[in-house]
């Protein structure tokens, strides 16, 4: 109720409304009563132990082994709760999950140590159909178009075969070979394969190749020698034309978003890469040094007797980092016996022993789970519920690094923790500021903000190819990047949270700037751009948010309104009753004229059952109607001039995105608190409960005295008992993770 009062949603529109000051006073006095009670009996809350999710696992492997993997290849999807994928109590365990961690440990340890006896395998990199292949793609050589560039980890020195396959028509004919094709027998399309920028193969593409051919629409290279470790592999077409193309249609920038209109008159079609596969190694010859091997083998046994000492040194260092705390004697004994087993089995030897110990480290519950143990002698041996306790320095270091970096603590944090100094307020603040300045703090943008703002919803959005021909996958990626860079900048520069809504700058590359009609931005690099456009200011002017709240063919004021209410204000509207007619049910045209979204909304809202909620939701979204499905500015919808007027739930008249922004900012408390709640849930790995609200209010009050700087929120959370203490499971009234009472 406090939330709705603070947002101005209570009393509901239409009801008699006391003065704003009286309402604020009511909310304040309610808050004061609750906060006073909470201060008397603070409850830090409880959660079960977290496990590493995909993002954390991937980053941890990078830190530990200097190896970039794609965790999606190994681990099942993370279940989300309250917006986030790191909420402990929905991280259920199962044999399948166990198997996934074991499999990952086995594969990754082999990849990191390298396997001179590796048997050939195949890795395929796909290009989605929605990617435009007109222009150079990031990482591919200049003078090429389309294709893709990837970093691939080669398991051993040896020979590798590269396969490129192309998109084909449903008939089986190579796509881009028809009437409108550019290539001829004299000047065929060509594709180049390069490794670390050096061309290793160049092929003419046979325009008559067909899916029913024995080799299909594929080209294979001869076996080519490549050394072990990560290399950038690119497969891209040689660019054979420059300048504008005047086509009747160009769906999604000539991507294959629609294959049905791809080969027609008035449409320039070119071959599209479908995937690139790397196979090998054939005839492996050994292992070159790789970043991972350098990271692992910090010592080499000089004499046969020196092996054990060197192994112990390597294993101790790796396991300490992986387990995020000093090893016990038992930990080390277990790993050393794995080492011994590895040296004697099969081909054996020192490296095989290290590899098996590494597999053990990666499969260990100490790595996969984040346990927080009560201090010794705190009654942990009894079956009784343990009392609340303050986390030790190592667990605090882990909480901190997973919160700010989405990975385990670095050497500096572990050092401070081992000296027992981390919990000291000055040192803690020093560490937080150090960590926020580190590039790894990008996780707050790419993980926290991306999930909070629901950027991943963009993955599912494919605007209609005919209505929005200028959209493509690259634009979509640029939109996500914009919002992430924008948020990361707030963190890095320690700006005010309110700039999230008011900033007159953003981060753009040429593609996105053109989309926004902001001039003088050239090239693929993103850079900070200040612009005078009031409508574009803040995150409500970001293409990402505007697109992810749209349908393929029309904007959705309802989704946009709902997004603002849920994500920014923390007050989700109630669900619609069943059997409501969809907006699609309203006539899309009237007397032969297409109606605008607004006209259809008005008709929809004439139903009283719908009106009670939609009068709150819709005006928010309607204020953004000048942004089309892809977030581009428009003045007409289906030929009808845009009417963005409406009345916010508190009676404020709205007619533009700037009005909406101002109206929301006139009452900033719900915006700030909702942000804090989300940040705190992400930091703690649990959903917030009623007893956390006094903490949220204290943090926001305090942040208010520090210009709402991002660091004030982050430090507020880090300094809260909820972050530094672990409560009593029974007091926190959390159901057991296995659903048992």
């Amino acid at each position: 109720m406090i939330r709705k009062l603070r947002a101005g949603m209570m009393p509901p529109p239409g009801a008699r409304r006391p003065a704003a000051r009286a309402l604020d006073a009511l909310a304040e006095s309610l808050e004061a009563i609750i906060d006073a009670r909470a201060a008397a009996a603070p409850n830090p809350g409880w959660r079960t132990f977290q496990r590493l999710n995909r993002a954390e696992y991937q980053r941890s492997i990078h830190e530990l082994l200097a190896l970039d993997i794609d965790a999606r290849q190994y681990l099942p999807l993370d279940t989300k709760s309250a917006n986030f994928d790191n909420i402990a109590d929905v991280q259920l365990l199962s044999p399948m999950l166990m198997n996934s961690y074991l499999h990952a440990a086995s594969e990754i340890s082999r990849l990191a140590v390298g396997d001179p006896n590796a048997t050939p395998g195949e890795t395929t990199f796909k290009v989605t159909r929605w990617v435009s292949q007109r222009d150079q793609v990031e990482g591919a050589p200049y003078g090429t178009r389309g294709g893709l560039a990837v970093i691939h980890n080669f398991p051993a020195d040896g020979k590798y075969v590269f396969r490129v396959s192309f998109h084909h028509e449903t008939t089986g004919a190579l796509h881009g070979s028809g009437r409108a094709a550019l290539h001829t027998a004299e000047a065929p399309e060509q594709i180049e394969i390069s490794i670390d920028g050096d061309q290793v193969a160049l092929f003419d593409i046979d325009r008559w190749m067909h899916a029913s051919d024995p080799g299909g629409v594929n080209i294979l290279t001869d076996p080519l020698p490549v050394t072990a470790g990560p290399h950038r592999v690119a497969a891209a077409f040689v660019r054979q034309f420059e300048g504008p193309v005047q086509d009747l249609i160009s769906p999604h920038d000539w991507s294959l978003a629609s294959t049905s209109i791809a080969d027609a008159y008035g449409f320039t079609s070119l071959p599209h890469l479908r995937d690139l596969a790397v196979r090998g190694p054939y005839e492996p010859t050994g292992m070159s040094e790789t970043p991972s091997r350098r990271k692992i083998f910090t010592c080499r046994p000089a004499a046969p007797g020196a092996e054990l000492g060197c192994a112990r040194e390597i294993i101790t260092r790796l396991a300490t980092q992986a387990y995020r705390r000093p090893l016990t004697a038992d930990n080390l004994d277990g790993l050393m016996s794995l080492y011994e087993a590895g040296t004697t089995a099969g081909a054996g030897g020192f490296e095989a022993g290290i590899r098996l110990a590494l597999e053990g480290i990666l499969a260990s519950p100490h790595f996969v789970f984040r346990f927080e143990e009560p201090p010794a002698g705190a009654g942990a041996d009894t079956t009784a519920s343990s009392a609340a306790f303050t986390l030790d320095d190592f667990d605090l270091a882990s909480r901190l690094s997973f919160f700010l970096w989405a990975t385990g603590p670095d050497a500096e944090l572990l050092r401070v923790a081992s000296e027992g100094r981390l919990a000291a307020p000055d040192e803690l603040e020093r560490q937080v500021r150090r960590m926020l300045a580190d590039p790894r703090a990008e996780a707050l943008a790419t993980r926290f903000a991306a999930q909070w703002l629901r950027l991943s919803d963009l993955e599912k959005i494919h605007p209609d190819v005919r209505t929005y021909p200028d959209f493509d996958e690259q634009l979509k990626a640029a939109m996500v990047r914009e919002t992430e860079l924008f948020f990361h900048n707030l963190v890095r520069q320690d700006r005010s949270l309110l700039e999230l809504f008011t900033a007159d700058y953003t981060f753009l590359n040429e593609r996105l700037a053109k989309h926004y009609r902001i001039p003088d931005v050239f090239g693929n690099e993103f850079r900070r751009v200040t612009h005078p456009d009031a409508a574009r200011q803040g995150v409500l002017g970001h293409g990402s948010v505007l697109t992810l709240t749209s349908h393929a063919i029309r904007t959705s004021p309802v989704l946009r309104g709902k997004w603002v209410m849920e994500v920014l204000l923390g007050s989700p509207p109630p669900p619609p009753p069943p059997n409501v007619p969809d907006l699609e049910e309203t006539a899309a045209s009237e007397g032969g004229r297409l109606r605008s979204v607004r006209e259809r909304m008005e008709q929809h809202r004439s139903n009283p059952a719908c009106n009670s909620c939609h009068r709150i939701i819709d005006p928010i979204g309607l204020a953004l109607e000048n942004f089309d499905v892809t977030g581009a500015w428009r003045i007409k919808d289906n030929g009808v001039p845009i009417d963005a007027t409406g009345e916010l739930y508190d009676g404020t008249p709205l007619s533009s995105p700037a009005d909406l922004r101002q109206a929301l900012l006139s009452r900033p408390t719900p915006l700030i608190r909702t942000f804090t709640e989300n940040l705190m849930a992400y930091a703690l790995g649990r959903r917030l409960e009623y007893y956390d609200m006094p903490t949220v209010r204290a943090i926001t009050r305090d942040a208010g005295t520090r210009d709402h700087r991002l660091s004030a929120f982050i430090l507020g959370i880090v300094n809260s008992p909820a972050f530094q203490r672990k409560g009593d499971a029974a007091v926190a009234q959390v159901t057991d993770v296995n659903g048992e009472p």
Partner: protein
Amino acid sequence: MTLITGKHLPRRTFLRGLGVTVALPYLDAFVPAGKQWIPSVAGAAPDPTRLVAIEIVHGAAGSTEYGASKNLWSPAAVGRDFDLAASALSPLEPYRRYLTIISDTDVESAEAVIPKEIGGDHFRSSATFLTQAHPKQTESSDVRAGASLDQLYAQRFGQDTPIPSMQFCIENVDQAGGCAYGYSCVYTDTISWASPSEPLPMIRDPRLAFDQLFGAGGTREARAERRRARRSVLDFITGEVADLRRTLDPSDRRRMERYLEDIREMERRIDRIEAQNTSGELRELPGAPAGVPDSFDEHVKLMFDLQALALESDMTRVFSFKLGRDASSRVYPESSVAKGFHPASHHGGRENNIEDFTLINRYHVSLLPYFLDKLLSIEEGGQTLLDKTMIVYGSPMGDPNVHNHKRCPLIVLGGANGQLDGNLHVRAEPGTPMANVMLTLMQRLGFEEMQRFGDSTGAFSLSA
């Protein structure tokens, strides 16, 4: 033993063809032709029925009044002489001797019980299909539905294979922001429940599925070496867990007990695989498929390839397979309908929209013959694998326009080791729970003593 002739391709040949065309079945011909069924561990039934349970979301056009009158799902005649021409089931006409249609059963458990649940049909529906139990409205870990049909079966009859059961899906399950109407995402993401509180995740990536079914490693020796390493690692983890349990608080400790069971399960799997390997069976397994294909069609076929291969090589006998995800707006170009699945399902009761929706239903059904043909092509002792398999295909929703769960689509395919006659259409009395059919299926699968399944009110007569 000797291998009978063979389309027995070496691994490299397989790799060369991999991912090349959509039309080529990826995993064909890698299991030697005419392979003997692997004798199962002593004491178990010699050749239990294989079970595949497939869910499609959003009901069917035939569940509407108009659709029923036009026989868009259920044919007009009951018994054996029914006409499928108008029905979305028409692609199954050539397989009618393996087809049992059960019309007009309801999934009452998917309906809202209390006002707070009204409107949440999409986020609760899938959890009811194989459980026929009403899901508890919660976003926390205290999820509750029922043990699912496939899991009950796997727990009793799937224990002799290296993997008791597998769960596959097609749609991406990570919906941003979690799920709606106060329901945990697991209700929408999976149809398999090991117990009322244990939803099982489903695998979308064929590569992941492949590695889990057949193990990583390029050769037999490499796979054996990896199994040895896995054993040592499992021993090591067991030791670590024992230490840990001393220091954790009681709730966390309970969670670790569960984890320990998972470790033992992994050990059991290795035992079973090794027991099979020493049974004299020589099999060269193919390399793993590369990843999730773009196209729905291709993806579904690849998942069917894996299921057929796994059933044939007896790696597992139980599959659940989720073809869709509730409220998905996926467009199926092959269906010739341009509308998304969910928008099209809200047909508004208009005849032309309902007809369009039928095309989508028919398209989904048309994917089944690919799988049926595979199972038919595997013959042993005068019986095909399809004769030994029971495939349940249906939806826990009826008319998706109004989110109801009445007159839901349900068919059963395969001979189920003589338990299903095929070529049969049975129409249920109005108000009959789908759970009654599930109960009867369970009884025929070997649960003779079972009296109740989900919200069943009695057995269901599957005769002409």
